[in-house]
Structures are given as C-alpha cells and as structure tokens.
C-alpha cells in the first residue's frame, strides 16, 4: 500500500493540517477542565458544509456555496475504563459548561472549539470488580479547528 493512496498527501490548495500524538485528551471551558484517557475506537467526525442545491424543472442540480458560509464538524468520542471519580468529574464538567464554548485537544493534538451537544448523556457503570468500570460518550457539535 502506498502512502500517496492511504496517507495524507494533498496536492493543491488544501488547508495544511498538523498532527502529532498525545497520551490523553483534554476538554477546557473557562476555568474548568478535564483530562481523559484516549477515546475508544469508533470515534467519529461528521463534516457539515452549508450549501444550496436547487434542482431545475428538468432535474439538473444547480449547486451553490458562498465561501463565507459555515463549515463545521461534529466530533463524537467514547471513553471506557474510567474510574468513578473521573466519571463524576466529567458529569460536573458537563454541567458547568452547559452551552459554553469548549476547547477540545484530540488524540492527534489538533485543537477544536465547539459546544457539547449531549450534556444529558449518562455515564455508564459497566460492572466489574475494579473501580475502572465507567464509560461515557461526548459529542462536540459545531466544532471548528482553532
């Protein structure tokens, strides 16, 4: 498998993206912050670009987009093996940051700003004999790279 086909190899006017590695992720909102272990696999990113498609009477799609219109990403990350203390810390964080802009540093060391759109999400006690048995999912909506 070649790097050109499977790796980051932009040709043209791509916005440069810098990535490195981190051992944890952080969510910061004002004076509040929380650091969590790396998310589980299955983390998803959904890129949404505002545009207009009008279909003509003959069925031809006419597409238009103003460069000033918004582009945003919805990031969904799931965590497991959290301690009860960390799970409660996360619930406090979600309450304190309700509706506020949150800065998220992801596993690739990219920094995003967005709003947590699932503050009602519960932490899940998965059972087990250790304390590290809690899971949680955070969705960061309307996020843009900083």
């Amino acid at each position, binding site marked *: 498998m*070649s*790097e050109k086909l*499977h*790796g980051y190899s932009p040709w043209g006017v791509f916005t440069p993206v810098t990535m490195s590695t981190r051992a944890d992720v952080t969510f910061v909102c004002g004076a509040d912050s929380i650091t969590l272990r790396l998310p589980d696999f299955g*983390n998803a990113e959904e890129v949404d670009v505002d545009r207009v498609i009008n279909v003509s009477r003959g069925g031809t799609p006419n*597409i238009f987009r103003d460069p000033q219109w918004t582009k945003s990403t919805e990031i969904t990350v799931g965590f497991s093996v959290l301690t009860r203390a960390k799970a409660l810390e996360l619930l406090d964080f979600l309450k304190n940051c309700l509706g506020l802009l949150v800065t998220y540093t992801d596993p690739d060391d990219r920094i995003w700003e967005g709003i947590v759109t699932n503050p009602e999400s519960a932490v899940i006690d998965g059972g087990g004999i250790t304390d590290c048995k809690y899971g949680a999912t955070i969705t960061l909506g309307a996020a843009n790279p900083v």
Partner: protein
Amino acid sequence: MSMTFRGPYANPNNPAVGPITTMLLPNPELDNTEGQDLSLQLRRAIDGTRSTYVKSSDRKSLSFTWNDLGRGKLVEVQEFFKLYAGDHVLLTDFRDDIWDVIFNENPISIQVTGRSANFGGPRAESGSLTLELLGVKIA
C-alpha cells in the same frame, strides 16, 4: 488503479474557477453502487389506456466505501470536501471512467475503526468512509 478527485471542475453550468486540487484514493470496497436518476409517473385513463410521464437524464448516483484509509487520508478527504462541497469535481474512477460529479451527501462522516499498518497520521490508525456522488459520465 486508484480513484482521482480533482476540484473544482468547470463546466458550462458551473463556471467555477480556481486552482486545481487533487485527491487520490485507493480502490473502494466491493459493493459500490451505480444508480440512475430516472423518474416515472404512470396514469391510467378511464378506458384503461396507460400513459407514462418520464424524466430521464444521463446522471447517475454513485456510492463508494473505503474501510482501511489511514487517519491522514481521512483528514485529507474532510479538507477536500470542505473545499469543494459547493463545486463540481472531476472524478476518474477505478475503471478509468471520467465523471463530472457533485457530493450528493452532506454531511459526510468518517469513523476511526482500528489499528492498521496503513500510512497516514501520526498514529497507525485507519477508518471508514462512504462517499455518495451524483454525476454524469463524460468519458
């Protein structure tokens, strides 16, 4: 063999101008689809006569899925989509057929699914992606 996306593509209906950006993707998974953009209305008169009203076009809807793209390539696809979600794109597919397409799906979603030997990104991780396109074969 690979898939090449070049944007923006200027055609008589979309005189987009700008620098050409190219994105290369490997061959998609099997089960890619190619459907037609046709519609039909069937009417029956009181004496049983059948009439059909049709809309026909050369446009086709295309769907491609990739399951083992490196993390870096997934980011590249996102950036390409951000640039050209509002433009026509020239696609050369794995059969070397050339298409004038638009992204039919908005938003697009990626999922990082596991560790991989693939290239791309600081971590050896890969993920999946599906692109839904609508376009006309031009060569």
